[in-house]
């Protein structure tokens, strides 16, 4: 059988229902302004416009496994420029979140960094930059962590010297347990939506 990609509306439907801001892509008219305005467009395998086309075409693997969805710097330029007022950035974040949830790890370091960031919020209520960096570095294993630490040692030392990095770990906020309850509830509502 020839290697022809079949259009399949079910992935589009999956995205509309389950991905944060996913239904916004319905309004895309393929002008490409998002791609043209993106600071990291050159490094993307599929620029946003094409991601949207792939969703419509039903290319699940290509979309959820793409590098692009993890390469958003959150600069909001595409959001401002989109003539159809699609929050392109939110869609990309939504897709990245969904892809990671489904076990795809296209840009492993960005994923670890983001996950650890949220981890800090959830565990402590606040982010400790030093702890964040350390944990993100070591998320890939001990030796990789050591390598990274050494690589960024100069930056760390300078920041400490200029009183911009605390050596004492940040404390938990007082209401951490209620914060966690709130966040758990939010994730539960989110899951509930996905199951619908």
């Amino acid at each position, binding site marked *: 059988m020839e290697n*022809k*990609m*079949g*259009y399949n*509306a079910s992935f*589009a*439907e999956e995205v*509309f229902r389950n991905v944060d801001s996913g239904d916004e892509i*319905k*309004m*895309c*008219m*393929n002008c490409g302004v998002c791609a043209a305005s993106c600071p990291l467009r050159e490094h993307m395998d599929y620029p946003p*416009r*094409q991601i949207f*086309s*792939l969703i*419509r*075409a039903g290319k699940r693997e290509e979309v959820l496994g793409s590098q692009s969805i993890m390469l958003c710097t959150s600069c909001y330029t595409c959001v401002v420029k989109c003539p*159809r007022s699609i929050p392109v950035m939110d869609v990309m974040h939504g897709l990245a979140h969904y892809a990671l949830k489904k076990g795809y790890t296209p840009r492993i370091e960005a994923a670890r960094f983001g996950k650890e960031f949220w981890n800090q919020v959830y565990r402590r209520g606040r982010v400790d930059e030093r702890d964040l960096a350390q944990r993100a570095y070591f998320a890939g294993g001990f030796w990789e962590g050591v390598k990274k630490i050494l690589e960024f040692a100069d930056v760390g030392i300078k920041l400490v010297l200029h009183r911009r990095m605390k050596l004492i770990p940040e404390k938990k906020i007082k209401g951490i347990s209620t914060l966690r309850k709130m966040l758990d509830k939010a994730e539960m509502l989110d899951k509930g939506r996905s199951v619908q």
Partner: protein
Amino acid sequence: MDKKTAVYICTGCGIGDALNVEQLLEEGTEEFTIDVSKDHPCLCGVEGVEVIKKDIADEGINTVIIGACSYRVNYDVFNFGPDVIVERVNLREQVAWVMPPEDENTQELAEDNLRMGCSKAKDTQLPEPFKAEEEYSKDVLVVGGGIAGMTAALETAKAGYKAILVEKEDKLGGFLGKMKQSVTMPYKELADTGAAEMIAAVEAEEKIKVYTSSTVEKISGGPGIFSVDIKNNGNAVNERAGAVVQATGWVPYDANKLDHLGYGKFKDVITNVEMEEMAAAGKITRPSDGSPVKNVLFIQCAGSRDPEHLPYCSSVCCLVSMKQATYVKEQDPEAVNYVLYKDVRTVGQAEDFYRKAQQDGNIFIRGAATEVGEAGGKLFVEADDELLGENVKIEDLDLVVLAVGMVPASKPAVTPRIKAPADAENADEEGMIEVLPDSGFFANSALNLAYRQGPELPTLKYGFPDSHFICFPYETRRTGIYSAGCVKRPMETAKALDDAAGAAMKAVQCSELTAVGKAVHPRSGDMTYPEFNMNRCTQCKRCTEECPFGAINEDEKANPLPNPTRCRRCGVCMGACPERIISFKNYSVGMIGNMIKSVNVPEEDEEKPRVICLICENDALPALDMAGIKRMKWSPYVRFVQMRCLGSMNLVWIADSLSRGIDGILLMGCRHGDDYQCHFVKGSELANTRLSKVSETLDRLALESERVKFVEVGITDYEKIPKIIDDFMETIEEVGPNPYKGW
């Protein structure tokens, strides 16, 4: 008319500073009988106008020559009623504002301009409006009872006039009546078509006489005096009308020619019109087995924007497919619609419905279908997806809808062939030739005009009977006959409503103007008309063939039979006539010839060349004015002579000028060809053709061909005018002075 002539020179706007007015009044009027000559510092002011009015009242002045600004301004100020001839001489835009002040050449230019004005005023007569022998009708005949036709009839009635509505089917409504729902203003949701209400309104309107199951068998006469033979259910009826609106609509492009898209091969491949009929009948199902429809694919531009089929965009099909996709979703919210498109063209506010269609989750795929096939009882479509850059396959389809475009209903299914003229090149073995699209024969018989130049409206492109739609919306190339709706160009319902209302208003205007002997657009209000001195006619048929508006019929002996109410007063016939027997009261071959003769030609040793520029008043002359307003500079040796249309240019003027020692002739006319801008359709093209024969004249006089030049000037080309003139002057300098000077 016993003429008493006055000349007034305005010295305002810099004219007085640039010219010696005393000398101008003396030199410029020397050869003419002038009863009063005056100058005034502000002629267009209350006082200035009062001076003229007083002379008219006290001195019995009936011919006024005004040397001031362009005739295109202050025409209302210098209007002294129907009994006073007014001739405007341009001393401002063409002289004071563009030439060096107090200069000999500037002075001579002004004097020549004044001489030409005096000459023209001398030869001009007061117009006597045409009055037909028959009684005038102001009723409007509307052919076609769809949305456009019904609207035209209703708008006519609302304006207080009677309409006669002829529809070939047994009931009114046209395509509107066959639709399930429509998408129109404000383009948010589906709406009722409104057909039933509109039909009821037409039928209830006393001022509208409806003929269904009827056809127009013959239309003779002209605006104001149309005689219309109608066949109504087999009976012959005659009606009289002042003007006609053709609203015969459209037919879908023949999908049988689209077998590459599976039409005719697979029962479940249907056209958008068939889809609409199915939806209107109640339920959308698979035509092959009547089973429900889950997956639908619309192929946009099916045959449209395709040089092999319909080269143009019909502008409505995108919206129609979105509407039909909505029907599918309303019937089954789980159904999936794919729309395979080249470009989505939902113009203006219709974009809102595109947004709705996207919001509904319809899937738009940009690309072209490469194959439509069947597998396992379902259809599939393969397409080149432009955005993914690969060939894709959409399977499991229940229905494929071809969005076919609109063909004007006037276009015949088969291109007609007629007996070829003797010198035709493309005739077949039987001596027949294919009819050109704009010949007037290229149409189904909707109007059956008893016109020498063919029974139907000439078409412009793709079989649409249109004129220059930017300059003259609604106009066709038959005076008093206006096209409206999709027969003119593809349009959706909201635009058809506007279009039909506009056409009805033009029709009413035409009957009113015709009844008082006035011309319609673009010389609206003109009361002159071409008069034929039949004694000298040689039956050469040039006038009957060349009239762009089919105004002149012929008898069996080829004598021209003018129909003045059909005339647009362009003067093309006057330019065509080799015997110079056609003239207007204020525009004739002799009159223009005399103007040119009034231009002083300096002796060769003075080294002052003279060029006559015959300039079209519609685009080139306003552009020249604009160049003047912008204070651009050009040669002072050119004398501009205003033409109604360059098509009225008679070769004798060129011959006469050159034999008097004029060094060159420049002709400025409108763009011609496919994207013509000629206000009389063919005028500038005809002038150009005639010019090809000017070489005989030049050869006879042993003059260089470079002395005569035709240039196309558009209304926005003002900035090019100085260069056009300077380039020509350079050419004239190169070829040297005309040896006939001083003969």
